[in-house]
């Protein structure tokens, strides 16, 4: 029997799992995808918002600000790239200055440091800002993060501290059986005292297993451009347009890997619609070009879409089911969900779990992950020391991003093992460069097949069914290399 089952391994599920792992509890996290952080947590702007934007008094406002403060420590413990580069919200029309000033007031109410800057001051910070910029709101506590490794390392740390993770397992029913829940999946069934529903845009479906719910989750798609690294100094902050009722609007930002990201759009969509379309991306292009000059869209290496789990209630839904306080919904976590996630986990544990379950701290809890190797960031001597120990660090697998075989093998030998080409890409950046894995994909496929002792036919690109190879070629048996 489990004390707690968490449904969903996005950033919310894994953050709750990690925070729970400091207590003496049996915790199981069930995720239907073949990797953690593989849906909404993977495809977003990767921004740690300062918290100037959410309406004061909402959970969004409170948890955003509390969450933001935790990221320096979390990223140190989890060895995740994070930089507080600051955000600038720009106003391009004299008539909209009052909106910017309202945002400044909102920031003060939310206790977020924010400064109104004049055009001259803005251009000093960002010389490529549009000539039309009139005024801007600078929030130094905003930052950028590597969202892929945040999820993976967070789950890894939770696992190291005793949480169990079941990937590729979909919850198909939950019912109450006396004091306990019976959680039925496509593979097995489990008993537990508490269920935490962190199922992202499927949270409405999971919640409905227990009772008739009075909220909806509306999937809203955002489409983005990713540009190659072309000039590290092209842009220094996250640049936002003024927010609208549809969201924070289009932003342009550097990523922790020195790429540039431009987006998102905001359109209501079907739950599994990750398609990109030209009209939408063209409108993103136009919005971004209005606030920033000379964006080199010819450096685009990828376009993608992510889906936000927008709640019909307009605020995060973090509360027990109406009929059962042991069933906890953490639903409708749209932006600023990523930044709020550590504070959401605290809120769930302090306000919703601790009143109903005895929480006893573990003696041997370790909040730190085993350090990752970032080969390129090491000094020459450190690099050579490492190669002396392990020749795999001398073999470059991805030439665009300079990723070594040693780094790929390191992530394979962790708690949350990458099972797919995409999972390797998210963790190590192999295939993230301008050739988009044209050169290295075949080699990564072989590394996975060898590691798992399976046929190359079984290796997936991403989701189940995304196999790459259908058969061996006619003369494959005759090859001698």
């Amino acid at each position: 029997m489990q004390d707690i089952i968490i449904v969903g391994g996005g950033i919310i599920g894994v953050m709750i799992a990690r925070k729970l792992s400091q207590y003496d509890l049996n915790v199981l996290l069930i995720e239907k995808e073949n990797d953690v952080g593989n849906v909404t947590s993977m495809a977003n702007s990767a921004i740690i918002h300062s918290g100037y934007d959410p309406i004061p008094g909402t959970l969004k406002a409170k948890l955003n600000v509390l969450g933001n403060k935790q990221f320096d420590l979390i990223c140190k413990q989890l060895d995740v790239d994070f930089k507080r580069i600051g955000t600038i919200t720009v106003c391009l029309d004299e008539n909209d200055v009052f909106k910017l000033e309202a945002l400044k007031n909102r920031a003060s109410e939310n206790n977020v440091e924010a400064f109104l800057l004049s055009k001259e001051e803005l251009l000093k910070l960002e010389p490529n800002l549009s000539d039309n910029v009139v005024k801007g709101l600078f929030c130094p506590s905003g930052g950028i993060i590597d969202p892929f490794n945040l999820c993976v390392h967070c789950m890894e740390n939770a696992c190291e501290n005793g949480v169990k993770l079941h990937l590729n397992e979909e919850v198909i029913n939950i019912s109450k059986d006396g004091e306990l829940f019976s959680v039925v999946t496509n593979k097995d069934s489990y008993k537990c005292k508490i269920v935490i529903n962190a199922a992202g845009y499927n949270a409405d479906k999971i919640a409905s297993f227990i009772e008739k719910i009075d909220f909806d989750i509306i999937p809203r798609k955002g489409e983005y451009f990713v540009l190659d690294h072309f000039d590290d100094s092209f842009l220094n902050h996250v640049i936002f347009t003024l927010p609208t009722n549809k969201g924070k609007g289009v932003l342009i930002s550097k990523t922790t890997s020195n790429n540039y990201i431009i987006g998102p759009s905001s359109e209501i969509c079907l739950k599994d619609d990750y398609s990109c379309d030209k009209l939408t991306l063209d409108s993103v292009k136009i919005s971004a070009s209005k606030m920033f000059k000379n964006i080199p869209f010819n450096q685009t290496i990828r376009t993608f879409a992510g889906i936000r789990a927008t709640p019909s209630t307009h605020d995060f839904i973090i509360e027990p089911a109406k009929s059962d306080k042991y069933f906890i919904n953490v639903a409708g976590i749209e932006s600023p969900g990523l930044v709020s996630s550590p504070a959401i986990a605290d809120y769930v544990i302090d306000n919703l779990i601790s009143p109903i379950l005895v929480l006893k701290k573990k003696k041997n809890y370790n909040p730190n992950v085993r350090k990752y190797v970032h080969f390129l960031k090491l000094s020459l001597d450190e690099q050579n020391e490492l190669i002396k120990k392990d020749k795999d660090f001398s073999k470059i697998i991805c030439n665009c991003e300079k990723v070594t075989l040693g780094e790929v093998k390191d992530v394979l030998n962790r708690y949350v093992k990458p099972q797919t080409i995409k999972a390797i890409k998210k963790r190590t950046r192999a295939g993230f460069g301008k050739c988009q894995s044209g050169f290295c994909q075949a080699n990564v496929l072989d590394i996975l097949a060898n590691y798992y002792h399976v046929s190359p036919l079984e290796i997936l690109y991403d989701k189940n069914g995304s196999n790459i190879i259908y058969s061996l070629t006619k003369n494959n048996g005759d090859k001698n290399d």
Partner: protein
Amino acid sequence: MINKDLVIIGGGSAGLAAAIKARQEGIKDILIIEKDGNLGGILNQCIHNGFGLEIFNEELTGPEYAYRFKQIVKDKKIEYLLNTSILSLDKGFFIKYINESGVSICHAKCIIFAGGCYEKNAGAINLMGDRPSGIFTAGCAQKYINIKGYMPAKKVVILGSGDIGLITARRMTLEGANVLAVLEIMPYSNGLNRNIKQCLDDFNIPLYLSYTVKKVIGKSRLEKIIAGKVDENLNFIDGEEIEFDCDTLLLSVGLVPNISILNNLGIEVSSAKGPKVDEIMQTNVSGLFAAGNCVHVHDLVDFVTNEGYLAGFGAALYLKNQLKEDLNIDVVARNNVSYVVPNKIKYSSNKELEFKFRVKKPCKNVDIIIKNNDKIIKKVYKLALLPSQMENIKINTTNSPLKDGMITIDIETRA
């Protein structure tokens, strides 16, 4: 740190030719750095024939063509490192590279960059629709089939009628795949005529001109392609759509010089997206030469080899201190000419000059006119010019020396 007179980055066709020529010209201290486990570069995965017609007057496979040059490099005992990647290349020619022995820094007096090109991919062309597996660049599919022995396709649509796409269409057909169509956004093909004949016509594979992919559909593996017809401005024409049920989309939509490793050196880039070079393949950075597909993408490997020879020759002159800059001429591609190599003429001692270029759009019944300032120095009539075909025009300046200023390449249609 080690020191070398000449370091050649890339052991493919351009790099090997450059090394051989430089050695012939008396350069002893040469090092070739190659990232793969074998010299020859991309030739090793091009197991089809058709290589060497210009240089050897016979049709070789890619590996056979590479073998001839590899043997010369070995016979001449030119030093090379395999499985060695460049980590960085800094001003002053400090080359940081990595291989089994560790990370090393080599200082070179002179560098020939021969790093080849990469394929434009789904991201670069803003392919719309879902993001399933089954979308490969043609070269990536070629590597799966020819190097790994894996078949990644059953029902295939190919986007782009460039040569790699055409050759991969045939290869896939021979491996039992069903190639449903080749789509080409332009109203003309971008492949060599012989490849259209031998790779498509002989296998009854239809070529759809003025068509491109409008949307890809598939949640996990590719399931369907919606192709749309485009007008002369390359905008989709409403209602002109064809659906293909397929599991694979091969992209053969162009190659781009792979020069990001040169970013720290301050090179000037040409409209071919490679470094600007002078008539002996020297870039604007003194002592840095470049050759092959990293300068401009070639149709035939034979031309790459010749360009490698030229860079090797130039680097040798540089190292022997025999270069005397006495001209200052910019070479400019005009009207329908998309780029020209070289971009600069600097040495009056070179009497034989070769200009390589492509047209932007197909044209018929034209004169190629090369002028030095306003004086016509060469005029060549052509029945037809195609963007898919690199043109080269040679001029000899023995009797009429060039003057400082400009050389222009124009295309004029005859009345």
